[in-house]
Structure formats: structure tokens, C-alpha cells
């Protein structure tokens, strides 16, 4: 027994000693899966980290949860896409200095055969009406992410309350949902960035795109230091200035996935 106690103590001291190295400034950013999974942040953040000698910790979740983390003061800055929810976040006093960063768009994807015949639709609302009429299987994110909120807005505009066996609420991230739609030969709505990343892995095609209601703008917001004095507002502000400044905007414009531009910078008109 003595030997094992000694062994545990040695391990304990070793792990603690090795673990406490490096106390650089850390900035916490909550963002959506689309910015992280597309690989954009991997090229966007390093120049900022280098210039400010800090480390940006990225928490990638859905927009709803990212904003919740901001409300709780557990992150310093949020980078999300759900304009209405963002405006509420700012109006409620949780966020300040909101800025437009970039946009891309949503696409409605499904099996090539298109059993519900949505290809011929003129608007996204019409697409959703056809899906509901044909009871074509549709996978919803169901997780209060930006994409989910957008989807709900379209259902609302179509005057439909989606219910029934054909409407599957996955409660998962975009990647999982695309995978599920592929496995079940179902339809779904996806942000173009994630779809471009996944295109090679799944056999789904874009069936509808280009409608105004599929516009997908991204915003960046600092968490209000008046609500949460412990947040690193100064560095958050610097990050906002960088992302919306010429250097960050150029990185966004130059970022490509499978040879296609994914995000379109908006900050500099």
C-alpha cells in the first residue's frame, strides 16, 4: 500500500508541475460551428494572437448557446449568426460594439432524385410548403442554432407548424445533421460553408439557393463589462477591430473551401 501511495503522490506532483506552465492572456470567444468547422478561424486568429501575444480560446457551439455563454459572462466575445437574437442580446445590455463581419447564405439540400420536387420552387417558403405537403423527410437542427432559428423563421413565413414523422428534430450540429440527411435520404437546410466542407463526404446536392430569406450574416459582439466586470473587454474590442479591419477582412475574403469562397466580408463597404 505504501508503494502505491508514493506512486500516486509522484504522479500528482508531476502532473501538476507539468500542467501549470504558460500563463499568457487568454481571450474566450464563443462562436458557431460553421466558423470553426469550415476552418476559417484557423487562418483568421493566428495573426491576431501573434500581434497581441495572447491566445484565443474558441468554444464552438450553436448561436443560441454561444449567446447564453455571453449572457452568463463566461466568454469575452461572441461571433455568431442570428441577427434578431444578436439585437436582443445587445438591447438587453449583455453585449456592446456589435459589428457586421461577413455573410454567406443558406442552401436547401437533399437527395439528387428530389422526391418532393422542390427544385422548381421560386422561394424558400415555397420549398418548405412543398416539403410539408409531400411529407418529405426533413432533418431540423432543433438546437436553437442560427441555422435552426432561420429555418423556424421560414416555417413561420410559410404558415406551417412542422410536425409529424417526416419532421426530424436532431438536436445536433450542422455536420451531424448533414450526415443524417445523407443517411436517411432526407432534406435539410445548411449554411453554405459547412455544406462545402462536407460536399465530398456525402451524396447530397443543393436543390434550392439564392432566395433573400436565405441570407446569412455574421456579427461579432463584445460582452458588456458593465454586466460582467471580469470579462476582458479591452482585448475583445481589439479582436473586433482586427476582424472587421482591413487585415481580418482580407483573410476572410481569401479563405476558400474546395476551391470556393465561403464567406463574403461585410465590414468595409
Amino acid at each position, binding site marked *: *500500500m505504501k*508503494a*502505491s501511495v508514493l*506512486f*500516486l503522490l509522484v*504522479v*500528482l506532483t508531476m*502532473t*501538476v508541475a*507539468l*500542467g501549470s506552465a504558460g500563463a499568457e492572456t*487568454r481571450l*474566450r470567444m464563443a462562436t458557431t*460551428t460553421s466558423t470553426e*468547422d469550415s476552418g476559417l478561424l484557423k487562418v483568421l486568429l493566428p495573426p491576431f494572437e501573434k500581434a497581441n501575444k495572447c*491566445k484565443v*480560446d*474558441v*468554444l*464552438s457551439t450553436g448561436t443560441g448557446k454561444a449567446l447564453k455563454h455571453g449572457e*452568463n*459572462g*463566461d*466568454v469575452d466575445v461572441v461571433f455568431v449568426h442570428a441577427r434578431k437574437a444578436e439585437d436582443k442580446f445587445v438591447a438587453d445590455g449583455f453585449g456592446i460594439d456589435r459589428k457586421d463581419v461577413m455573410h454567406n447564405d443558406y442552401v436547401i439540400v437533399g437527395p439528387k432524385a428530389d422526391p418532393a420536387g422542390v427544385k422548381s420552387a421560386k422561394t424558400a417558403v415555397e420549398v418548405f410548403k412543398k416539403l410539408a405537403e409531400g411529407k418529405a423527410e426533413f432533418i431540423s437542427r432543433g438546437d436553437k442554432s442560427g441555422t435552426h432559428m432561420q429555418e423556424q423563421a421560414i416555417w413561420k413565413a410559410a404558415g406551417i407548424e412542422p410536425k409529424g414523422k417526416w419532421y426530424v428534430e436532431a438536436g*445536433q*450540429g450542422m*455536420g*451531424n445533421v*448533414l*450526415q443524417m440527411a445523407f443517411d436517411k435520404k432526407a432534406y435539410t437546410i445548411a449554411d453554405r460553408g459547412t455544406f462545402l*466542407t*462536407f460536399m465530398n*463526404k*456525402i451524396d447530397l446536392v443543393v436543390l434550392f439557393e439564392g432566395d433573400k430569406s436565405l441570407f446569412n450574416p455574421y456579427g461579432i459582439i463584445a460582452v458588456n463589462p458593465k454586466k*460582467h466586470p*471580469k470579462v476582458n473587454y479591452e482585448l475583445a474590442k481589439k479582436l473586433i477591430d482586427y476582424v472587421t479591419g482591413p487585415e481580418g477582412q482580407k483573410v476572410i475574403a481569401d479563405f476558400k473551401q474546395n476551391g470556393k469562397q465561403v464567406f463574403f466580408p461585410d465590414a468595409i463597404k
Partner: protein
Amino acid sequence: MDFLLEGIVAAFRLIVGLDQEVYAIVFLSVRVSVLATVYASLLGIPPGVWVALHQFRGKGALLLCLNTLMALPTVVVGVFMYGLISRRGVFGELDLLFAPGGIVLGLTALIVPLVMNLTIAAIHATDPRLVTTCRALGATGFQTSWKVVQEAGFAVIAAVVVAFGRVISEVGIAMMLGGNIRGYTRTITTAIALETSKGEFALGMALGIILLLVSAGVNAALFLLQRRQRW
């Protein structure tokens, strides 16, 4: 079948290729799991021994409670701890959320009941005459406890092994309290969840194989320790 094969090949490549990110992930997993296991052992074994050796009112209720807590779902611990260590929570000032410390805290809370309960069971399984003999020979309470723990050593170490297995394979707490931050709080299990959600099944599988190798290594170390104990 393809996935499995690809996974094995990818695992081999990750291990041999000395991929720095992968090593950092593995190291963090081992670090938080070992720390949580050590803390839980320190917090769980002594009270477990005490409870096992004493009779008191409410002991039955306590055991029932511990048995229930053994089945505690990790997400429940996760959400409860989130409420405590969020900046809005009571311990928000400690800055534990979305840091390795938060994961260690959550994992420790998860396995303290487990360690305690299995310790109690281990002590109960020893020959009751041992305690009487120790007392008859004039041993203090502490000396008696120590003797009993020595006697039950094998089973107590088994409790620690089980606890370690539970934390290193745990994903809910690591995800909720750590946040799966690249290069900071990403553990093997959260990395697997992430890679799978990105459709990188082979990479997820590879990490899974690495996880198994790591637990095999740790368990082998404890096994050797146990064997030495016998003499």
C-alpha cells in the same frame, strides 16, 4: 468495415507521426483523469473506511444515497457544476469554467461516490475479526483503519482503477465544463465527438484506439503495482 480499417491505419499514423496536437490532447486527458482520480481517492477512501468501520444512525440511508450517486449521469454533474462555476454562479470568481481545472472538478465530483462506495464494500468484505483483534491488541483507531485498508488493499485499488476508467472515458463533463477548446481543453473523448460530427469517422476511430491504448497502459501500471503488493 472500411471505417475500422481506415481507423486503425489512421491511429497508427497519428501515433508514429508524433502529431503534436494529438499528443497534447492525450496528455490533457491523462492529466485531468489522473488528477481527478487522485483527488477522489483522497476524498473518498478515508470517509469510506470510516463509514465501513462504524455503526451509526442513517448509515443505511447513506449507503442507499451513495449507490444512487454511483449511477450519476455525467451530464447531470456537468450541468450542476456549470451552474456553480459559471461567472454567474457562486464560484464564478475562480475562473474554472472552460479551463482544465473545471474538468478536474467535475470529474472528481463524479467519482467520489464511486470510490467511497467501493471502498466501503471492500472493507466490509474483510474478515470482521481483524478489527476486533486490532482493538484487543490496543491499536488506535487510525492504526486499525490502516491495517484494514492494507488487508483490503487489492479491492481498494480496484475501486481506484474503476474510477479512473470512468473519468478517462467520460465525455459529457469534459464537453460542458471544458468546452472542447482546441489546444487547451480538448480531451480525447471530446475530440472524438468533434471529429465524428465533422464526418471524420476514421480520425475519430483512431483517437478511440489511442484512448484504449492509454487506458491499457495505465491499467497495466496498476496491475503491476497490485502484483507487487501480494508479497
